[in-house]
């Protein structure tokens, strides 16, 4: 019996981790700046490629993954400085600009690197409960997703940066008037967002085939999670991921991955009809 | 005969009760002013009548039909016409097209163009009719929006602080305009805190204070009401 229960939890954890890891970076950038980073998938791809490249050079996996996340974060800071910064007053244009960037990056990668890169294979290791075998790495991913949420909670609720960042999020003009360097806050937030995207790519790199267009695999999940979750990462994205993971898990188990994805999309479209401001509006209202 | 009946309407925002158990009747053919100090709930009540907020309690009737659940466009189709507080025009469209969009459901062809010309002249916007609405001065945008509201030829004209940002002369002209339309049979409900303007146009007055009806009556009796003077003086002292 407990084996079945654990199996359900395991499936839930697998989907939940995927949703949180792919959406967290996008949600932070959207929550802080109201910008949807269409190149989000390319930062994920960047994280994956750097990880695989470093591992092939002999760097241990975990260190390669951390370095990959940092790389994506630094590139994100540069992209914010060069492009995104100009568009904070024109969110739709920032969407287009980052989409242009996404096209440039994906297609250049196809030109330069080609489509096939030698993968590194999922770290071995599995354990059995009852008659079922489970991959340890999948649980590590779940642990990472929870750690990301915990880390964000600490950064945004417990640090000085977090206080200023939340103030900027609420009212950028006021925060600026009170001396917050909103420009720097935005750079750092964008960097955290793209760094988390890089982390997502780094963590999933061992589990999938590396192609320059792999970012597309993640974007639907990250988009719908942010659409449902709204602007608040902790109060929105996390519950949205729980909710979507339950739907997805149930459908995946009975009908397979693609029906799971379609079902998730349909659920999202139905929810926006009922809750136009996203799930977080309900949670925040209840919280008051 | 009552054209608008607000019955026991309340509106709460979270813990704040902006409008509390308000009854209000606007009779057909009158100019009715809704006054009160800042924060009295005038604008909230206005938005409830217009349909921008659903009330937390109570019902709103227009021409004896319950419209509480109707969206703003449906209320407009019943014969209401609305001018909001801040000028709200189609800024990137020419002035004439703004009027045209308001008129096109009612008139077409040469008749519509004649009515456009008449309204533009009435509002002193004739020379600017090809300009973009966003290029007009603040006062002119207020006029344009009043013109759009009038273009619908409504039974009931709802105006939220129509003279905000206008010079005294413009305010006076607006008052005369409202009176002339009232003389042709249009009912008008105005939210206003410029007392000179209220004196100029009002026939009946309702005073809101802290979300509740504080006093109501014809213009003269309200002007002489000592308690009303007090809440207004209180407001003056606070400044």
């Amino acid at each position, binding site marked *: 019996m407990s084996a079945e229960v654990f199996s359900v939890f395991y499936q839930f954890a697998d989907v939940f981790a995927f949703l949180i890891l792919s959406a967290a970076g996008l949600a932070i950038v959207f929550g802080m700046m109201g910008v949807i980073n269409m190149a989000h998938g390319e930062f994920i791809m960047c994280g994956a490629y750097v990880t695989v490249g470093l591992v092939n050079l002999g760097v241990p996996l975990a260190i390669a993954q951390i370095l990959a996340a940092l790389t994506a974060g630094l590139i994100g800071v540069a992209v914010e400085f060069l492009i995104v910064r100009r568009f904070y007053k024109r969110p739709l244009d920032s969407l287009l600009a980052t989409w242009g960037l996404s096209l440039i990056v994906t297609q250049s990668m196809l*030109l330069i690197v080609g489509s096939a890169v030698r993968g590194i294979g999922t770290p071995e290791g599995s354990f059995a409960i009852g008659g079922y075998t489970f991959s340890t790495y999948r649980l590590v991913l779940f642990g990472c997703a929870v750690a990301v949420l915990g880390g964000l909670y600490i950064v945004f609720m417990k640090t000085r940066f977090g206080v200023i960042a939340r103030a900027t999020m609420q009212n950028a003009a006021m925060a600026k008037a009170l001396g917050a360097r909103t420009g720097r806050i935005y750079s750092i937030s964008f960097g955290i967002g793209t760094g988390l995207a890089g982390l997502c790519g780094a963590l999933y790199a061992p589990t999938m085939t590396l192609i320059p267009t792999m970012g597309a695999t993640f974007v639907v999940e990250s988009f719908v999670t942010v659409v449902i979750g709204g602007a608040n990462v902790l109060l929105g994205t996390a519950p949205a991921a729980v909710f979507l993971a339950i739907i997805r898990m149930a459908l995946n188990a009975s009908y397979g991955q693609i029906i799971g994805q379609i079902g998730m999309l349909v659920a999202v*479209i139905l929810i926006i009809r009922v809750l136009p401001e996203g799930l977080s509006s309900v949670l925040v209202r209840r919280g008051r | 005969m009552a054209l608008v009946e607000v019955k026991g309407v309340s509106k709460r925002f979270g813990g704040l009760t902006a409008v509390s158990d308000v009854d209000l009747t606007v009779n057909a053919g009158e100019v009715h002013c809704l006054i009160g100090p800042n924060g009295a709930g005038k604008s909230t009540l206005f938005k409830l009548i217009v349909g921008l907020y659903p009330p937390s309690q109570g019902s709103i009737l227009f021409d004896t039909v319950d419209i509480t659940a109707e969206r703003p466009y449906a209320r407009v189709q019943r014969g209401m016409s609305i001018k*909001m507080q801040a000028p709200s025009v189609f800024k990137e469209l020419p002035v004439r097209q703004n009027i045209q969009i308001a008129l*096109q459901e009612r008139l077409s062809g040469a008749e519509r163009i004649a009515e456009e010309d008449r309204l533009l002249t009435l509002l002193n916007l004739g020379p600017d009719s090809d300009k973009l609405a966003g290029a007009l001065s603040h006062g002119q945008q207020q006029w344009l929006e009043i013109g759009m509201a009038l273009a619908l030829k409504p039974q009931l004209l709802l105006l939220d602080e129509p003279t905000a940002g206008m010079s005294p002369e413009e305010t006076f002209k607006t008052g005369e305009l409202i009176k002339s339309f009232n003389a042709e049979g249009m009912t008008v409900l105005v939210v206003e805190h410029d007392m000179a303007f209220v004196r100029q146009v009002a026939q009946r007055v309702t005073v809101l204070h802290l979300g509740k009806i504080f006093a109501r009556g014809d213009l003269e009796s309200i002007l002489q009401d000592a308690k009303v003077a007090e809440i207004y003086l209180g407001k003056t002292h606070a400044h």
Partner: protein
Amino acid sequence: MFKLLEGPQTLGRGKIFWSCFLAVLAGALTYPLFADSYDVGNFAYFLIWIFMALGLCLMWGYGGMLSFGQTLFFGIAGYGYGVLAINMGGGTATIAALALSVVLAMVAAGILGYFMIWGGINGIFFGIVTLSATLVLAFFLGQTAGPEWHIGPARLNGFNGMKGMDPLAVGDFYIEGSALYYVMIALIVIVYLALRMLVNSGIGNVIVATRENPQRAEMLGYDVRKYQLLTFVIGSGLAGLSGALYTSWGQFITPSSIGLPAAAMPIVWVAFSGRSDLTATLVGSFLLLFGFQTITVYSQQAALVLMGALLLATVMLAPQGFVLGIGKLAADWWSGRRPRDDGAVMAEAGRLQSEES
């Protein structure tokens, strides 16, 4: 009714504009007489996509709804045409298949649009919900390689795509080559002029009013949601027309014409051209398609990198669009010589400048 061909919502008016229009049309009509059939076929191929661009221009430039779902409806109608043409047999039935597949795309747009518009989705979220739906359809079709995925005798065939449907035909006469080219030209003229009339009509007035200030439009008694849905259904239906024509043109369609990067292409064409004007979109999209096809012969990736760079450059340098910007310069120069049109051009220029706010 033809008065509506000109109006405040469209650039280009007067004898000179329409003379140019007729000259271009005459050139297009005589082109197959002195070009070889391969080039005519290529030309027809560029024209396929124009409908999709015009549809996006209507939704985005006029209606203020940035849909990233043009290839979603392209795909629905494209696969729809395939399934219907295979199931109903060739010949004149293909005309019905074309019409039905466009209706199918419009019904799908109606359903998706209802949930989004009545749910109050707009701005950025409108884009990402439509894009999510687009990508999910592409992923789904990519998974349909197995023989169990078929509708009647029509196999969906996964990434390799559906094939084997007849092209458009009347009786025994296949509409291909020059014939298809002339059908395209006729359809483009009809769609272009019809859209001009639509946006300059009373409905068009409400569509732009809703873009400018939805609350004010509602306060004038318009149920703006219905106008938005109408705009979305027409714009998406035009993408559907492109899709059905595409399948008929090449007798195949694959999921790659739905997913990324295909979904970005209409955005690039319309943004680069100038979304706020139909004529600019028509001209600009054609030029971009021509350029894209020329480069694709050497390297598709390079062509796509260029498209991405153009999108980025447009947003950074000319947010209103390059073709429109050049058109405006030309109009300013012209009105400088002929003050008669001054007011109209100024109104136009002002409208475009302040659009962003």
